[in-house]
C-alpha cells in the first residue's frame, strides 16, 4: 500500500504544481500576445546583456549559432564565445569566419577562477563579438571565463547547439525590467529543434521530431517546462534554470562565486547557490521563468547519447542534493528548504529507489497471494493514467498560450507518444538515473559521449566528442 500512497502523494504534488501553472497561463498568454505592442527592442533603456556561449567541439553548428545570436532583436548586447579547449576546428572556423585577431591586454573585469586563457579574439568589424580561447575546463569554467570578460550587468548563458528566437532576449529583458531589484535569474523555455526546418540560424517551420528518442524528449520538455516550471516559479521555488538558455544578474552570480567547476549540473547548482545566498542574507529576490522566451536545441537522437546525457544529469542532481542537504526541511530557506529541496530529494533523486522497491514489493505481495493481482494492475494503471494526465495538462497549457504545433496530426502524435512514454522510456529514465548514481559512487566524472549534427538538412555531418 505504501507504493500506492507514494504514487497518489507524488501525483498530488505534481497536480498542485500543474494547477499553479494553469493559474498563470492566461497572464503568460496576454504578456506574450501584447509584447508585440511595445517598442522595447528599440529602446536604449533596456539593460545591456552579455551572451556567454561555451563551445566544446562545436565545429558543425557554431557559425550558424553565432550568426543567429548576432542578429537578435535587442538594442545592446555582446556575444562571448568561449572555446573550451576544443580538439576539433571550432576555434579555427570562428577565427576565419569573422576574421578575428588576438586582442592584447584585454580588460578582464572579473576575478572568478578559471582555466588559463590562451587568447581573446576580436574584430572591430564585428564589435559585439568576442572569442575566448582557453584550456579545457568544462562548461562551468567556460562560463566563469566569459563572466570575467563580460562588459554588461546582465549575462545570459546559451548552449552552442541551441538557437534563440529573435525576440527571446527582449522578452526576458522585459520580465527583468518589471522587477529589476529582485530578479536574479530568469529561465527560458527550451524546445526540441529536431524535425524543425532551420534556415539562416532560425527555426522557420516548427515540426515534431521524426525520430523516436527526440520525440519522447519533446513531450518530456513540454511537460517539465510548461507543466512544472511555470508553477515552481510562481512560488519562487524554481531549482533550475536550463543551461541552454537563462539570464542572470551578473553581480549576483559573482557574489556566489560564479559557476561551480568540475561537475555536471552547474545550471542547477548556480540557482541553488543564488537561493541560498539571497535567503541567508535576507534579501528579497525571485528566480523567474519566461516561457515565451524560446530557445531551440538539438536533442540527442540515439540511445547511446541520450543515456549518457541522462546519467550525467542523475550524477549532477545527486551531487547538488548532497552538497546542499543542509537546506532540506530547513525553514530558514523558505519554499526552497521546505518544498523544493524535499521534493527534489524524495521525488527526483530517490525516485528510482521508491519505484523499484515499490514495484518489487508489490510483485512479491502478489506472488505470495495470486488473488491480489488486481492491486498490481491498479498500481500500474494509477501510475499510467495520472502521469498521462500531467502530459495532457501540459499540452493544454501549450495550446492555450503558445500553439507552436499547428497540425492536428501533431496533436495526435503528441498524445500517442505521451502514452507510449510509459512503456519503456519512463523505465529507462529510472534506470539511467540509477546508473548515474552508481557512476557518482564510483567517482566517474567523465562527460560521456556526445555527437553534434549540422543544422543544415543537406549536410548530414556529425561530429563526436568524448
Amino acid at each position, binding site marked *: *500500500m505504501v507504493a500506492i500512497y507514494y504514487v*497518489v502523494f507524488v501525483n498530488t504534488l505534481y497536480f498542485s504544481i500543474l494547477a499553479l501553472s494553469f493559474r498563470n497561463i492566461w*497572464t503568460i498568454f*496576454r*504578456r506574450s500576445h*501584447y509584447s508585440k*505592442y511595445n*517598442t522595447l527592442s528599440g*529602446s536604449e*533603456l533596456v539593460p545591456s546583456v552579455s551572451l556567454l556561449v*561555451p563551445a*566544446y*567541439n562545436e565545429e558543425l553548428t557554431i557559425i550558424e549559432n553565432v550568426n543567429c545570436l548576432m542578429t537578435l532583436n535587442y538594442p545592446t548586447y555582446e556575444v562571448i564565445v568561449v572555446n573550451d*579547449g576544443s*580538439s576539433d576546428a571550432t576555434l579555427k572556423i570562428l577565427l576565419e569566419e569573422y576574421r578575428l585577431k588576438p586582442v*592584447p*591586454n584585454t*580588460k578582464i*573585469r572579473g576575478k572568478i577562477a578559471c*582555466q588559463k586563457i590562451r587568447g581573446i579574439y576580436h574584430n572591430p568589424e564585428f564589435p559585439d563579438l568576442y572569442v575566448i580561447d582557453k*584550456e*579545457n*575546463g*568544462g*562548461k562551468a569554467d567556460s562560463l566563469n571565463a566569459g563572466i570575467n570578460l563580460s562588459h554588461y550587468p546582465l549575462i545570459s548563458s546559451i*548552449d*552552442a547547439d*541551441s538557437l534563440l528566437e529573435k525576440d527571446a532576449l527582449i522578452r526576458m529583458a522585459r*520580465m527583468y*525590467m*518589471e522587477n529589476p*531589484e*529582485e530578479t536574479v535569474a530568469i529561465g527560458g523555455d*527550451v524546445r526540441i529543434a529536431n524535425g524543425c526546418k532551420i534556415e539562416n540560424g532560425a527555426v522557420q517551420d516548427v515540426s515534431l521530431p521524426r525520430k523516436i528518442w527526440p520525440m519522447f524528449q519533446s513531450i518530456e520538455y513540454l511537460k517539465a517546462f510548461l507543466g512544472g516550471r511555470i508553477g515552481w516559479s510562481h512560488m519562487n521555488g524554481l531549482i533550475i534554470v*536550463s*543551461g541552454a538558455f537563462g539570464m542572470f544578474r551578473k553581480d549576483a552570480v559573482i557574489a556566489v562565486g560564479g559557476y561551480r567547476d*568540475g561537475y555536471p549540473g552547474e*545550471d542547477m547548482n548556480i540557482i541553488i547557490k543564488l537561493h541560498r545566498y539571497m535567503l541567508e542574507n535576507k534579501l528579497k529576490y525571485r528566480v523567474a521563468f519566461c516561457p515565451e522566451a524560446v530557445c531551440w*536545441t*538539438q536533442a*540527442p537522437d540515439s540511445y547511446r547519447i541520450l543515456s549518457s*546525457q541522462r546519467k*550525467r544529469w542523475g550524477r549532477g542532481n545527486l551531487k547538488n542534493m548532497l552538497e546542499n542537504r543542509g537546506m532540506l526541511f530547513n525553514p530558514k530557506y523558505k519554499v526552497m528548504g521546505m518544498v523544493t529541496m524535499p521534493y527534489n530529494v524524495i521525488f527526483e533523486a530517490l525516485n528510482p529507489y521508491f519505484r523499484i522497491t515499490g514495484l518489487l514489493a508489490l510483485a512479491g505481495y502478489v506472488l505470495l497471494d495470486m488473488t491480489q493481482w488486481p492491486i498490481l494492475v*491498479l498500481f500500474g494503471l*494509477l501510475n499510467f*493514467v495520472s502521469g*498521462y*494526465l500531467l502530459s*495532457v495538462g501540459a*499540452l*493544454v497549457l501549450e*495550446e492555450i498560450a503558445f*500553439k507552436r504545433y*499547428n497540425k492536428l496530426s501533431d*496533436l495526435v502524435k503528441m*498524445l500517442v507518444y505521451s502514452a507510449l512514454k510509459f512503456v519503456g522510456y519512463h523505465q529507462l529514465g529510472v534506470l539511467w538515473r540509477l546508473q548515474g548514481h552508481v557512476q557518482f559512487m564510483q567517482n566517474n*566524472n567523465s*562527460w560521456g559521449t556526445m555527437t553534434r549534427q549540422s543544422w543544415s538538412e543537406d549536410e548530414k555531418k556529425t561530429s563526436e*566528442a*568524448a
Partner: protein
Amino acid sequence: MFPSLALAYLFLYICIALVVVGVILLFAMKMSHNGKRRKTAFYELKQRDYFTYLQTALTENSPLKLPPGKLAPLERRVIQDRLIEWIDQFKGEYRDKLIALCREAGFVEHDLKELGRLRYGRQIDAAYRLGGMRCPEAVPGLMELLKDEKPGPMAIMIGRSISRCTTRQGELKDMLALLLTKGKSIHHLAADILLETSLDTSRILIELLEDRNPDFVKVGLVAMWGQAVPEVMPALDRLVGAEHQDVRAEAVKLYLSASPALRDETILKLIQDTDPEVRAEVVQALGSKHASGSIPLLRKALRDEDWRVRYNSAESLSKLGEPGFEALCQAAVQGTGAEREIAMQQIESTMQHTRTEDRAVEQMIAHNKKRLLYDRYFGPVRENRTSKKRTGVATVGGDYTA
C-alpha cells in the same frame, strides 16, 4: 486495505475523467484555433485591396474611406489589428488619419464599451487596443483599471496605453504615480512608457526632475538618456548633490555627459563621493574633457578601492597626452598592487594600440614621445611577447545541453 483501495480507485476514476475531458478540450481548442487562423488568413487576403488603397490614400488629402460591405466580427478585428500596427509605425498626419478611420469605423466606440465590461479578459484586450488607437476618452477607464491591477506585465501594458492616449500632462503623472506605487522598482520601464506619449516630453521631464518624489526624479533622469534638453541643466546641477545615492549617480552621469565644462569645486566634491559609480563617472569625464590639470586627481584615483574607478582613471590618463602617460608610467613603477596593475595594463594597451593602428604623422610623433617615456621607465619595447602554454589538462567537454 479497503479504504486505501477505495481511495486508489477514486483517484484513478478522477484521473481518467480528467484525461477524457482534457483530450476533448485539446481537440476542440486545436480545431477552433486552426479554424480561426484559416479565417484570419482568408480575411487578410480578402481585404488586401483595401489595405493597398489605404496605403495609397494616406498620402492624399481626402479622408480615408471605410472598408466596403458588411464585415464579420473577425474581419473587423483583422482590419483593426492592421490599422493599429500602422498607427505604431507612422507619425504625424498619417497617424492622425488612421486614428480618425478607427473612430469612423466604430472600433473606438466598440472598445470603449468593452473597457466598461465586467470580464477582466475583455477589459484588458480593450485596454490594449484603445492604447493602439490613441483614444483620449479611454484614459479615465484605463486609470481605473490600472488602480486595481497588480504589479506586473498587465499593469505595464495599461500604463503604456494611458501614455499613448493621454493629451494631458497631469494624467501622465497620475499614471506614473500609480505604476510606481505598486512597490516595484520599474524606473527604466516607466521611463520607456513615458516616452511613448505624444505630448512635449521636455516639459514633463523638467517637471519630473523638480518633483519632491525621488521615484519621479529617477524616472525623469532615466528618460533623459539620449535626449538633448538644455532646460533641465539647472535641475541636473541641483540633483548632482542629491541625497539619494542612485539619483545622484544618474544625475552625475547626465550632467557630465552634457556639461561642456566642469567647475573645480564640482570635480573635487564628486571625486570624493561615497558612491563608486559617481567617482567612476567623474574620472571618466576628466579624460574626455582633456583637463590636464586633473592629472594629480586621476593619479590618486588609480588607488581607489573600486575597479571601475581605477580603470576609468587609467583610461583618462592615457587620453591626456604625454603628461598623462608619464603619470601612468610613474604609477606603474612607483605604485603597488592594484594601482600598479591597472597602470601597467593601460600602458601596454596604449603602446600596442598606437603601434599597430595609428598611421597619421601627428599620432606617430605623439606615439614616439610616449615610447621614449616608456623606454625611460621600463627599457626598450620588446617586439615579440610570447606566453607560456600549459599542457596536460584533463579534458572535460561534451554535451552542454540543458
